[in-house]
């Protein structure tokens, strides 16, 4: 029972010409399930891809599958990032394209995608329903891929992996973007497949994990170190630590009673599918909100209305910064007052911009920088680059950095212009817990100067302290609106 399944000796790997793993050794024995945690950029994703044979490395990786196991003899990797293609095999999608009705029919449906996957791996269709139900995905089978939100895309990848039940399943940040119920059910499903022939390597910095995990490791200086379960938190590194840049506190926003957002019976639908139902919501200047709801409850659609990104805004009775939408304002006037980060913004962000360009582009609300920003803006961006610990990476292209670092750059971009309204849609995806805490402290500090905040986060324990109101969506409708002090 204890023969090695994965045997790695002297693995050395470079990511974009920089050494990441150096003579790494690792043995995974039969029936062991591992958690790989630690700092962003330490090489977790690179190691996972090397084991799955998706990236080039030096050294030796041996995988001995069990011939007596009925599960597919595969090392299957579920990426922390996802990509899908249209019916012509291309993936040149653009930001918020899914809200443009004309573009919807260019991708396959979830059902067709799953059938093709099942056909390729000869999977039993009857097994699928239960998995879909457990992850709250059943209602989406007739949607097209482009209509899915980021959390739903993530789930689709997980549905496929669990359905496949490979002998070695490698999951990279699987909880990103998942709601509470889905996270719990995912853990149950993972426990279940691990009991019936799958072994897990799970990359995560989260604390709610499947019970079957029995080994823990971090990567440090390119080598793997096995640790005890309770040692995990001490291996996080401290990136955001300095004082908040002074310019952030320079101009306080006077608190007034004006309504920043006012929605009156807002409805959004695509054909028969109603995504938002009779939304009534008011946000006053200086208020701090958390927006919650299950995956697919309509959170991203609601936020896209506020950011001027949704074409159906024009058919609704809805006010932003005191003006009715569609009364002659341009979306760039709206965006100028908002600092936004979201999974979708990150997903479609210009990958060929440098870190510094990306941060400065926050002044112009563009994805990538198209003009010379001048001295003052550069200086402000510099302060944030330093604050977020990105000095060494400021001239590096975004697509050459690991996700966690990209995310820090985009967070800096979000606040660089010190906006009136901050919309933080799962801002800390890909960050470790310490970075998340620090970022939330920064948000608290920013918001103490009158900034209005709308925060989306699936982890109750990871919200900024300043949050005072909550709006909860369920199936496109407002379920509750409440003061957060009243819930315990």
């Amino acid at each position, binding site marked *: 029972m204890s023969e090695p399944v994965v045997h790695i000796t002297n693995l050395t790997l470079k990511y974009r010409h920089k050494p990441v793993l150096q003579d790494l050794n690792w043995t995974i024995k039969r029936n062991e399930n591992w958690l790989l945690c630690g700092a962003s950029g330490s090489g977790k994703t690179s190691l996972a891809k090397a084991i799955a044979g998706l990236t080039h490395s030096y050294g030796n990786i041996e995988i001995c599958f069990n011939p007596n196991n009925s599960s597919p003899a595969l090392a299957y990797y579920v990426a922390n990032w996802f990509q899908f293609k249209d019916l012509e095999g*291309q993936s040149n999608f*653009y930001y918020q394209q899914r809200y443009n009705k004309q573009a919807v029919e260019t991708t396959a449906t979830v059902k067709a995608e799953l059938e093709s996957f099942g056909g390729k791996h000869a999977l039993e269709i009857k097994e699928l329903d239960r998995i879909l139900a457990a992850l709250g995905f059943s209602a989406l089978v007739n949607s097209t891929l482009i209509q899915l939100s980021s959390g739903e895309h993530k789930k689709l990848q997980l549905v496929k992996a669990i359905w496949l039940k490979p002998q070695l399943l490698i999951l990279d940040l699987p909880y990103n973007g998942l709601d509470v119920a889905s996270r719990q059910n995912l853990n149950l499903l993972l426990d279940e497949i691990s009991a019936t022939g799958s072994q897990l390597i799970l990359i995560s910095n989260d604390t709610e994990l499947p019970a079957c995990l029995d080994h823990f490791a971090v990567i440090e200086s390119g080598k793997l170190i096995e640790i005890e379960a309770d040692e995990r938190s001490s291996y996080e590194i401290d990136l955001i630590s300095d004082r908040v840049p002074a310019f952030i506190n320079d101009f306080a926003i006077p608190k007034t009673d004006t309504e920043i957002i006012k929605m009156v019976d807002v409805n959004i639908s695509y054909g028969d599918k109603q995504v938002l139902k009779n939304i009534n919501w008011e946000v006053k200047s200086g208020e701090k909100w958390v927006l919650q709801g299950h995956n697919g409850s309509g959170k991203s659609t609601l936020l896209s209305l506020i950011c001027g990104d949704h*074409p159906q805004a024009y058919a609704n009775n809805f006010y932003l910064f005191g003006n009715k939408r569609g009364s*002659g304002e341009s979306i760039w006037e709206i965006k100028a007052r908002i600092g936004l980060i979201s999974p979708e913004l990150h997903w479609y962000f210009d990958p*060929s911009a440098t870190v510094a360009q990306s941060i400065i582009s926050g002044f112009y609300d563009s994805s990538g920088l198209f003009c010379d920003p001048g001295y003052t803006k550069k200086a402000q961006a510099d302060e944030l680059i330093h604050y977020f610990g990105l000095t060494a990476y400021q001239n590096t292209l975004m697509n050459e950095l690991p996700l966690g670092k990209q995310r820090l750059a985009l967070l800096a971009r979000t606040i660089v212009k010190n906006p009136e309204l901050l919309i933080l849609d799962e801002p800390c995806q890909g960050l470790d817990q310490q970075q998340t805490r620090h970022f939330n402290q920064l948000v608290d500090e920013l918001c103490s100067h009158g900034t209005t905040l709308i925060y989306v986060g699936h982890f109750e324990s990871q919200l900024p302290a300043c949050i005072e109101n909550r709006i909860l969506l369920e199936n496109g409708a407002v379920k509750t609106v409440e003061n957060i002090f009243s819930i315990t």
Partner: protein
Amino acid sequence: MSNYFNTLPLREQLNQLGVCDFMDSSEFLDGVNALKGKKLVIVGCGAQGLNQGLNLRDSGLNVSYALRKEAIEGKRDSWKNATENNFTVGTYEELIPTADVVINLTPDKQHTAVVNAVMPLMQQGATLSYSHGFNIVEEGTQIRKDLTVIMVAPKCPGSEVRAEYVRGFGVPTLIAVHPENDPQGKGLAQAKAYCVGTGGHKAGVLKSSFVAEVKSDLMGEQTILCGLLQTGSILSFDKMVEKGIDAGYASKLVQYGVEVITEALKHGGVTGMMDRLSNPAKIKAFEISEELKDIMRPLFQKHQDDIMSGEFSRIMMEDWANGDKNLLAWRAETGETAFEKTPAADVKINEQEYFDNYTLMVAFVRAGVELAFETMVQAGIKPESAYYESLHETPLIANTIARKKLFEMNRVISDTAEYGCYLFDQACKPLLADFMTRVDTDLVGKNFNEGKDNGVDNRKLIAVNEALRTHQVETIGATLRKAMTAMKTIKTA
């Protein structure tokens, strides 16, 4: 109606052909103000119509769509596009009489019918906007004298117009005011505001004329953009099959190769594309493209001459009148070629392999781009206009081939471009017959560098680089591309 260009004296022909001003960003400081509060009515809601409308509305302008009654009653795609994005939609009779600006974004061929239907309904002093000048210049349509006539032509497909706008940028755009129809002198201000509304002012705007736009656009699409890509693709595929290369591989190399190769062209011009080859391959590609230029120059000149004299549009309009007999027959033939009918194999071809194994296409593209550019400039078209209609658009057309091969390319481009493409292709293949007998698989299908050492003669390489880099399409291209900073990288193959 007679050909407008041919009614002009030579002095005025030259004058209009020579309108070409790459506008400074300071010319757009007035934003969308010239159109603010005005009622914009777009006729037609296809890819250009819808995406331009979405952008204009998001820029704070009042946009609605006028469609034909049948399209509304039949709930056709154009009606769905507009209503599902919450635009007001109405018939011509309902919307045109109140419009300050009528934006005609229907296919070229419908222009006469659309303009005839729309013009009597338009209010005094309103503006009519085109995105292509064929109707005015070649068909010679006369517009009521009280109306202002402008052109705003984004040089990208509709989806790109939207994609670039939502990420805070835009696509290069060409604008013009028709000198016969600018009674109030407001045409330029409105065209500029329209550009700001679609985001084009951030990516470079070229002030042109109806005449210069039509004569250069027709030339580009017939020769380098569609014609030569079609000829080059078919000849390359047939050559590989003849020489025993796997047909599935050949199909994939041809289908995606032109997109990958011209992606390098988009970012770094002809120089950037040629620099992707090894030194020996670059010298070889240079030499055969010189030969190709000599062989094809008379054909390029004939196309330009026929375009200038109006002969091309005369024979094409005859075919229109004849129920598109030629066009449909040629389209069917394209659908039947071996390349079209051979599915791409499920093999992985990495990005560099498309250059190393398809040196012939690099040579075709260089020859075609330079020839089209040179021929246009010799005919009196300004280099900036010639650049947009040759080099700039090549990657965009290549992208349609990557999607679904030549049939798709011909389906997506206008009927006018498609007609010219077939004329070129039919004449070009026999011209290249002898040349093609001398082509072997080192140029198409296999790695050119295989079995060769990488050595070259210094002086020869320097001379080749010099010739490539000092060509006028490169010097003007460097300036224009600077305005298109941070162009989106297409995810190729």
